[in-house]
């Protein structure tokens, strides 16, 4: 294939890699108190697959890399797979941004979102820590009348439930240590 054809092909391919979503970002903000020092909690959060220790919905986790750019695939107990990447890492603030994107045309059962940006951060809280997950998600459905299982409120509830499981699992994990 000559260079020109390759260029043309790549131009044609670009739009299919872009992620369409709704015009209203959804907001989530969940916090939990954890019985461990911020340093201890942060060190574990930075391990890409630590979520498997906490979140009961995650049955398997595989990751490549660590820190900024770490990419992980999570198998969920409903048979779905989600993929996330660490797109921002602020060690000094104990804060990390994880970005989830779903391929065009795919709908995650139980969590019908197109993309999500989740900040996880750890702060001091007496002798322990506070861990907060906050950020934004976009529903996958494109159009003004989504089916009842793909509405903004379904998406928001699903995302909140997922992050709540992670945080509550984290609390239990450190309490048991």
């Amino acid at each position: 294939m000559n260079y020109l054809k390759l260029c043309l092909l790549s131009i044609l391919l670009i739009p299919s890699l872009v992620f369409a979503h709704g015009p209203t970002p959804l907001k989530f903000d969940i916090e939990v108190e954890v019985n461990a020092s911020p340093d201890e909690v942060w060190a574990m959060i930075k391990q890409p697959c630590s979520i498997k220790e906490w979140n009961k919905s995650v049955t398997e986790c595989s990751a490549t890399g660590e820190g900024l750019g770490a990419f992980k695939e999570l198998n969920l107990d409903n048979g779905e797979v989600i993929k996330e990447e660490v797109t921002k890492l602020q060690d000094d603030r104990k804060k990390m941004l994880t970005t989830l994107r779903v391929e065009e045309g795919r709908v995650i059962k139980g969590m019908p979102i197109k993309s999500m940006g989740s900040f996880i951060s750890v702060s001091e809280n007496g002798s322990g820590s506070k861990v907060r997950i906050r950020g934004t998600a976009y529903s996958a459905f494109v159009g003004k009348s989504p089916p009842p299982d793909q509405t903004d409120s379904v998406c928001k509830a699903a995302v909140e439930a997922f992050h709540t499981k992670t945080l509550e699992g984290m609390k239990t994990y450190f309490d048991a240590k």
Partner: protein
Amino acid sequence: MKVKFKKIGFILTFWALANIAWAQNLAFITNQLENTVSVIDTTSKSVIKTIEVGDKPAGVIASFDNKHVYISNPGNQEINVIDTDSLEVVKTIKLGQAPLAMTLSHDNQTLFVADWYMNRVFSINTQSLEIENQYEVGKSPSGLAISSDDKLLFVANKNNNSVMFIDIDSGKIQSEIQVGTAPFGITVDYSKQLLYTVNVQSEDVTVIDIKNAKVINSFPVDTFPYIVSIDEAHNQLFVTNKRDNSVSVVDRTTFKEIKKIEVGEFPEGINIHPDGQSIYVANWFDGTVSVIDTNTLEVTDTIETGEGSRAYGQFIIER
């Protein structure tokens, strides 16, 4: 003679004081997650009224005569017209499937609204509130602006990674220019005849020369950038970085970063104040507005607004 000077001095002082008292510039901040618009008095830097609008208000544009503010509501597909004297919604238009970005002709006669789902721009007569024309554009038109002579529309097509120049009279696509990945906000630099398109996913800004319809430069910003605001007096550009909780200040000639200013969380809409002394930034996550001094480049005030403050568009009026 002496008396006369005194008199003139008195009149001038009175006039200046009266002006300060009467010059009440207002910022209209759409709060997308609580279906309201916060009206900020930019002199006292406080919210003087909260107006109920449609569902999921996002876009905002103030008319050039400062008499009206238009609000787009993708949630229930309507545009609200706010009267800037009464601070009430005086009219509402139903429109499309997800109206978001807006622009206005300089004579205030025509409002253009980009529909996120229909891949179309509507033009609306602001007197009759009837739809006059519909323009087919690219996928997920997210940014919309107009040329200084009101002949061209500039549309950022988020899912085509392109900017289109649409001839308003004929409806024809005059040019389509490839920019970065996922362009969102588009801002016209009228005195330089340039366009700045902010690309959310490639995290940069594309600079387009309007006359030649060509990309002449691009510069990096930070995570999930949204839109540019222009500060002509200090020759700088301000860009909101939604997932960096910051605003990049960039030199308007060299396009090099001067400073990055931390603001509230998830900043989106950004406007220069008409007096050129400050920049207003709506912080979506916090439900606040940060005010930045354009001289010191420091945040001087943070104003509580409402849930999901977006203020996507031109949101400050002069009164």
